[in-house]
C-alpha cells in the first residue's frame, strides 16, 4: 500500500471561502493509505511547495494528492516539487477544487462535499500510479525540405546558415517554384527573378544544402528526430556531373511540340529542356513522353551533339534513403482548373489566368514582355481583369476561401499595363478589394488614382469570344446598370489551391490536412508553423494562401523552429504513452489502424508501441478488446478507480 499525503490549498479565499478545507483534510485522513493530510493558504508559493517537500521526507510519502486549482495551472509546479523531494513526478495527482468546486458552487455544503469526493478520486488514482519516465530519442541533425519554391529555399537557407545540413526535394527539374515565373512583385515592383535568382544560386552553392531536383518522396518511416525517408530521383537521362549546361542539346532537339510548363503552356518546348534560362541546376532533362529516341529508339541527336557525353538514355530512377530529424512541407500551390467555369470562355486564347499574364508581361517570357492578344498577336486596346474566379465560392465549382494574393497582383498587373502602354484601357471587376498589408492599400489606390485603372464593383456573368473582341456580360453595381463591355483581353484572377500531391505527402508523414487540402497547423495562433505531428513543419502556401513577404517571413519562422529542434541532442518523450501487454495481445492489429501517429507496429503476432511516436490519446486502448493495450497515466484501472471513488 502506498503512503499518500494529501495537501489542500486555500488559494487565499478563492477556495477557502466556499470549501471547508479543514473538513476536506479530515475526510482525506480517513481514506486508506493516507498517512498525512494538511492544508495551507497558498500551496503554489515557495513555502507551500517546501511544506510538501518536507512532508514527503518526514512521512515517507510515496504518493501525493494536491487539492487546489486546475491541473492545467499548477500540475507542473507540484510535480517539480515532488521531483525535488526525490519522488517520481508522476506520483502526483491534482484534484481540481477551485475551478470545479469553490468557483462554481455558492453553497458551502455542496462545494465541500464535492471537494471531498474529488479528492477521494485523486487518492484512488494515486494508489495505482506507477513511476513514469520520459523516454529519450536521438535527433538526426539533418532537415528535409519538400518543395523548392521560395518557401522551401528560404527555410533551407536559414537552417543551413545555422550549421545544419538540409536537403531540398523538388519535383520539377529546377528549384524556384512559382516565384520564378513572376514578373514584378508587389508592392515595390522589384523584379521577381532579380531577387529570387541569387537565392537559388545561394541554395545550390551552400555547403550545407543538397538539392534533389526532379525528385519525389517515395516513403517515410520513423518519427520526430529520426525520420528515414526514401527519395526517388526520377531519371533525367542527363548525367548531372558531366553536363556543362551549354544548351546545344535543346537547340538541336527536333521535337518542339510539348507545352512549356514554365511558360504556362503559352509556348512549346523541346523534348530535352531546361525549364527556364536561370534554372538551378542548369542541367536539362529529357521528357520521356516526348523524346523520339526513348519512344522509338531512333533520333539521339542530342547525344551526338553533346561533347561532354552527358546524355544517358538508359538512366534509371534512383532511390536514395537518408535520415532526417525534421521535415518541412513547402509544396506550394497551383491555380485551380477552370474546366467547370464554362461561362468564362477560358478556352479562348484571349482569356488568360493571372499566372499566364505574368509570363506574357515578363521580358523573359514568350513575347519578350510585349503585351499582345494570343489570337491575332495584336496589341489589345483594352484589358479587363476579373477578380475572385473560383475563390469565395461555396458551390462545388470553386473554393470557399479567399485566395488572398489576387487583389494585389491584379493591381500590380493593371499598373504595369498602364505604365507601359498608357493608351490601353484597364478595367477591374471586383467584389471587394482586400489589401491588408504594409503599403498594400496605398499601392492599390495608386493604381486607381495615379494610373487610372477603372475599378468596377460588380461581376462578369459571361464572356463571349467574338473574334475581334470579347463581350463581357457584366454589371456595375454602384452605377446600378447592366453592361455589355467589349474588351480585347481578359485576365481571370483564378483561385489557388495546394498542389495535389500534398495530400499524399501529408498522409506519408501522418500530418493532418483540411478539407481544402491545406496543411493544418498545430495551433492556429500559437503554433502556426508546426504541424500537429511532431517533427513536421509547414512553410508557405501549403498551410494557407499567402504572398511572398508573408511566405518568406513564415519560412524564417519555420526554420527557427526546426533549428530549435535540431540543436537538441536528445528528445524527451511523453511518458503517458500506450503500452501493450504481450501476454494478452491477440495480434488483431485493430490498434494499428486507429493510431493517428502510426506509432503501433504489428509484428509476428503481437503489436509494439513506439514510445517516441505515441502522443497518448488512448484510441488504441479502447479499440483493444482484450485490454492488452493500456495507456500509462490514464490506465483502465486508474480511470475505473476514479469512477468507483466518485460513485462510492
Amino acid at each position: 500500500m502506498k503512503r499518500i499525503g494529501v495537501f489542500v490549498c486555500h488559494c487565499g479565499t478563492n477556495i477557502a471561502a466556499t470549501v471547508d478545507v479543514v473538513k476536506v483534510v479530515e475526510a482525506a485522513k480517513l481514506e486508506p493509505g493516507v498517512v498525512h493530510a494538511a492544508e495551507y493558504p497558498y500551496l503554489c508559493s515557495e513555502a507551500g511547495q517546501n511544506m510538501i517537500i518536507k512532508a514527503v521526507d518526514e512521512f515517507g510519502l510515496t504518493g501525493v494528492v494536491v487539492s487546489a486549482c486546475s491541473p492545467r495551472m499548477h500540475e507542473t509546479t507540484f510535480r517539480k516539487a515532488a521531483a525535488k523531494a526525490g519522488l517520481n513526478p508522476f506520483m502526483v495527482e491534482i484534484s481540481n477544487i477551485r475551478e470545479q468546486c469553490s468557483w462554481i458552487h455558492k453553497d458551502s455544503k455542496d462545494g465541500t462535499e464535492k471537494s471531498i469526493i474529488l479528492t477521494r478520486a485523486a487518492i484512488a488514482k494515486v494508489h495505482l500510479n506507477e513511476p513514469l519516465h520520459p523516454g529519450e530519442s536521438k535527433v538526426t541533425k539533418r532537415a528535409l525540405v519538400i518543395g523548392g519554391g521560395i518557401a522551401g529555399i528560404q527555410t533551407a537557407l536559414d537552417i543551413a546558415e545555422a550549421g545544419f545540413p538540409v536537403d531540398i526535394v523538388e519535383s520539377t527539374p529546377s528549384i524556384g517554384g512559382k516565384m520564378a515565373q513572376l514578373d514584378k512583385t508587389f508592392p515595390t515592383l522589384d523584379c521577381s527573378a532579380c531577387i529570387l535568382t541569387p537565392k537559388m544560386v545561394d541554395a545550390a552553392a551552400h555547403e550545407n544544402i543538397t538539392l534533389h531536383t526532379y525528385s519525389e518522396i517515395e516513403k517515410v518511416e520513423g518519427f520526430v528526430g529520426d525520420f528515414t525517408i526514401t527519395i526517388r530521383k526520377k531519371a533525367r537521362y542527363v548525367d548531372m556531373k558531366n553536363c556543362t549546361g551549354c544548351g546545344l542539346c535543346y537547340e538541336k532537339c527536333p521535337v518542339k511540340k510539348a507545352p512549356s510548363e514554365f511558360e504556362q503552356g503559352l509556348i512549346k518546348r523541346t523534348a530535352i529542356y531546361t525549364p527556364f534560362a536561370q534554372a538551378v541546376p542548369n542541367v536539362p532533362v529529357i521528357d520521356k513522353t516526348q523524346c523520339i529516341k526513348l519512344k522509338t529508339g531512333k533520333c539521339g541527336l542530342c547525344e551526338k551533339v553533346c561533347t561532354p557525353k552527358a546524355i544517358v538514355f538508359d538512366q534509371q530512377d534512383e532511390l536514395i534513403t537518408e535520415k532526417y530529424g525534421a521535415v518541412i512541407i513547402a509544396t506550394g500551390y497551383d491555380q485551380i482548373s477552370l474546366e467547370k467555369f464554362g461561362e468564362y470562355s477560358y478556352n479562348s486564347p484571349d482569356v488568360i489566368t493571372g499566372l499566364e499574364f505574368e509570363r506574357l508581361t515578363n521580358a523573359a517570357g514568350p513575347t519578350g514582355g510585349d503585351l499582345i492578344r494570343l489570337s491575332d498577336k495584336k496589341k489589345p486596346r483594352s484589358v479587363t481583369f476579373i477578380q475572385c474566379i473560383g475563390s469565395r465560392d461555396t458551390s462545388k465549382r470553386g473554393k470557399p476561401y479567399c485566395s488572398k494574393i489576387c487583389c494585389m497582383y491584379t493591381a500590380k498587373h493593371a499598373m504595369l499595363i498602364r505604365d507601359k502602354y498608357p493608351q490601353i484601357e484597364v478595367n477591374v471587376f471586383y467584389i471587394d478589394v482586400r489589401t491588408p498589408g504594409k503599403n498594400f492599400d496605398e499601392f492599390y489606390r495608386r493604381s486607381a488614382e495615379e494610373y487610372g485603372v477603372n475599378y468596377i464593383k460588380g461581376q462578369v456573368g459571361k464572356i463571349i469570344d467574338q473574334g475581334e473582341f470579347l463581350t463581357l456580360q457584366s454589371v456595375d453595381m454602384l452605377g446600378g446598370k447592366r453592361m455589355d463591355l467589349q474588351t480585347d483581353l481578359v485576365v481571370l484572377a483564378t483561385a489557388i489551391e495546394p498542389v495535389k500531391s500534398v495530400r499524399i505527402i501529408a498522409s506519408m508523414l501522418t500530418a493532418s490536412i483540411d478539407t481544402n487540402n491545406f496543411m493544418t497547423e498545430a495551433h492556429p495562433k500559437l503554433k502556426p508553423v508546426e504541424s500537429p505531428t511532431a517533427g513536421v513543419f509547414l512553410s508557405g502556401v501549403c498551410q494557407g494562401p499567402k504572398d511572398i513577404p508573408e511566405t518568406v517571413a513564415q519560412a524564417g519562422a519555420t526554420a527557427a523552429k526546426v533549428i530549435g529542434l535540431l540543436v537538441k541532442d536528445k528528445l524527451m518523450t511523453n511518458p503517458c504513452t500506450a503500452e501493450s501487454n504481450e501476454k494478452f495481445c491477440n495480434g488483431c492489429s485493430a490498434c494499428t489502424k486507429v493510431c493517428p501517429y502510426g506509432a503501433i507496429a504489428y509484428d509476428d503476432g503481437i503489436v509494439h508501441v513506439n514510445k517516441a511516436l505515441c502522443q497518448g490519446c488512448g484510441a488504441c486502448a479502447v479499440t483493444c478488446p482484450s485490454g492488452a493495450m493500456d495507456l500509462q497515466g490514464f490506465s483502465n484501472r486508474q480511470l475505473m478507480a476514479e469512477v468507483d471513488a466518485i460513485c462510492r
Partner: protein
Amino acid sequence: MSVGEFKPLVVAFCCNWCSYAGADLAGTSRLQYPAEVKIIKVPCSCRVNPLFVLRAFQKGADGVIICGCHPGDCHYSTGNYYTRRRITLLYSMLDYLGIEKGRTHLEWVSAAEGVKFATVMNKFVEQVYELGENRRLEDWRCKS
C-alpha cells in the same frame, strides 16, 4: 442521503485539451452548474472505454456524459471521430436494452465554450433529475 430526497450523481468524462479546459473556463467565469457533476479527466474523448460508462452506472451513477473537442479540432487529429462512432453505437445499444436515453449524453465542448459547458451540465442534470434514480443499471451490492 436521506430517503425521498433524490440527488443524482453524474459522471462527466472530459478530454484534457478542450472540454476540461472549457470546464476550467466555466470555473474562472464563475458560471454555476450543479455540484452533482463530477469530472474525470481523460486525455481524449476516445480514451473513454464503454466499460467505464457501464462501470459508472454499475456503481450507482445516475447519468454519464462524455465531452470532447469538436469534430475536426481534436488535439490528436482524429480521436473524437472514433469517439463519435463508438459512443453513438454504445448509446444506441443502451437505448435498445431499455436504459433511459436521458441518462447518457455526449457533447462537443471547446476550450473557449465555458458558457456552453455550464449550460450543457445544467440541462443534463435537470434531465437526470426528471428520470430519478438509476435502477436499471446498478449493482445493488454497492448501494447502501
